[in-house]
């Protein structure tokens, strides 16, 4: 694996030729291992109740926002509406609240989701192995959990309260999901949260290598959300410009040819449309990041977790992909039962 120093040098090097070289390598590898497929999914925010205080997040516990949690009926309405757009893979999200959205609540949501979607992932609070196992058997295929930053000091600075302030527990989450038999695991860092992107990236790679080695049957993907402002307050300690962002995607592809690379609607259309040529293999489409955002937003009057930059509908994204000669994949093969 590339050393930390070399990663730093690559990120710091302003030479456009280096960027191009990385991109060519990354593109070739992506073509080799993924063909021209781009997996599509959309998020459903079930609840923004949260007991953690992450300074950078729109949902954090000290933020004075309206809280909402979908009832089963509301969940069903949301999912039905989303499913009608054609989405088959759904990512269920909640804030970090065992109390407001316990495992039983999540399980209920999964059971509803199974009626409408063929692929179900969750991005919720870290939990124990048996809890992941329970959700896996209920129909969850994938678990997404980002360390946000792997630098301990910075992690402590931005995660002030609640379970999320426990760095090690969070770090061990992908492993617990693996132990539970979960088949898809997604990790990532919030770019810009720390002031040392190179080191964060290097530690992420180590984490991923560890997971690949010990849980080889799992399908991995990584995400690199770039931090957004909330209500005008700037939480980024470093600026990850477009060139660095592209380099990060390419470096990841080069190090991990088989790992999926995910790009959400945080990124603007120009970046998303280019990034699929360079290593990205998964994107969200037609997203809403507010609780009840698909069907009942008026009712919940919820604020989104982050501002979306790409507002294109699923059909628009699919059309774009096809004109670019990509193969949009709405659903993937999955086992009949999760056992």
């Amino acid at each position, binding site marked *: 694996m590339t050393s930390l120093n070399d990663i730093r040098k690559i990120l710091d090097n302003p030479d*456009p030729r280096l*960027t*191009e*070289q990385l*991109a*060519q390598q990354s*593109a*070739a590898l992506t073509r080799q291992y993924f063909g021209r497929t781009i997996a599509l999914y959309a998020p459903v925010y079930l609840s923004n109740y949260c007991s953690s205080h992450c300074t950078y997040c729109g949902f954090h516990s000290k933020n004075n926002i309206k809280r909402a949690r979908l009832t089963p009926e509301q969940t069903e309405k949301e999912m039905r509406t989303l499913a009608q757009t054609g989405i088959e893979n759904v990512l269920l999200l909640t804030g970090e609240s065992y109390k407001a959205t316990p495992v039983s609540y999540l399980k209920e949501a999964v059971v509803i989701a199974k009626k409408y979607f063929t692929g179900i992932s969750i991005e919720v609070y870290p939990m124990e192995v048996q809890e992941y196992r329970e959700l896996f058997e209920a129909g969850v295929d994938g678990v997404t959990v980002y360390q946000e930053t792997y630098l301990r000091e910075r992690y402590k600075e931005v995660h002030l309260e609640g379970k999320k302030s426990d760095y090690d527990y969070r770090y061990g989450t992908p492993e617990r999901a693996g132990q539970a038999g979960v088949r898809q695991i997604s990790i990532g860092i919030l770019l810009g949260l720390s002031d040392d992107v190179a080191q964060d990236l290097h530690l992420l790679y180590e984490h991923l290598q560890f997971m690949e*080695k010990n849980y080889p049957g799992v399908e991995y993907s990584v995400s690199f959300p770039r931090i957004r402002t909330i209500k005008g307050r700037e939480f980024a300690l470093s600026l990850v410009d*477009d*060139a660095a962002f*592209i380099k990060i995607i390419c470096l990841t592809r080069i190090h991990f040819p088989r790992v999926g690379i995910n790009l959400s609607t945080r990124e603007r259309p*120009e970046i998303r449309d*280019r990034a699929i*040529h*360079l290593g990205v293999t998964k994107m969200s489409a037609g997203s809403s990041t507010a609780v009840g955002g698909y069907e009942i937003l008026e009712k919940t009057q919820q604020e989104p977790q982050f501002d979306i930059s790409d507002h294109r509908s699923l059909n628009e994204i699919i059309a774009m992909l096809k004109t670019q000669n990509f193969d949009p994949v709405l659903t993937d093969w999955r086992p009949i039962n999760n056992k």
Partner: protein
Amino acid sequence: MQNTISQIQDPLTIAGETFTSRFLLGTGKFKNKKDLADSIESSGSQIVTVALRRIDIETHEDNILQYIPKNIKLMVNTSGARNAKEAIRIAHLAKETTLSNWIKIEVINDSKYLLPDNVETIKATATLAAEGFVVLPYMSPDLYAARELVKAGASAVMPLGSLIGSNQGLKAKEFIRILIDEIDLPVIVDAGIGAPSQAAEAMEMGADAVLANTAVATAQNPALLAKAFRQAVEAGRLGYLSGLPSQKSDAHASSPLTGFLYEK
């Protein structure tokens, strides 16, 4: 030959024992015992394999052990075993001599290709490792089987380079590479090594050691070839340690992907 610095600082460690030589020698098929003794010496090998066979009670043969210096580690192979049970039996017999508790598990139930049976090998490894043997299983390079062997308690894995006696070199190269990358035990390439260049190739790739037998035993000058193997294994190892520049594939001319980042 003097130890190079790399040998001093780069020992081969198996089951807690360290060795300076990364070339293992098999003792089968030698025309005469003198060739064997000379080859062991010129090879610099510190680990040699022997087999167990019924005594020929008609002719009183010299015992092969007379030709193997006492300080050399003996590894008894279970050749002849067609399944785990037979391999375990041979290991128990070998243990009686208390000369060594190192066992090379060789379970072959195929007289056409002489391919090892990974499944039976895993079973034998589990039993014998639990009994305290130092187990080095000879196997077909398969990642799942190698992982099972690690779990079963093997002290190394010995993937075949190509079919026994074929001298075809590293036909299984890419599969061996996977084991080198993924398995934390020493990887000793065994079988099919017919020339020093092939041994060097295995070592350059990152193999921990190489075992050869047929090539040396059937050479016109076994002791000389044994010396060549010794040098090849050392050269290959140094090549690996020095960090060979990776072979870059040609850059294909294709339209630029990142121009958009820099245009105004």
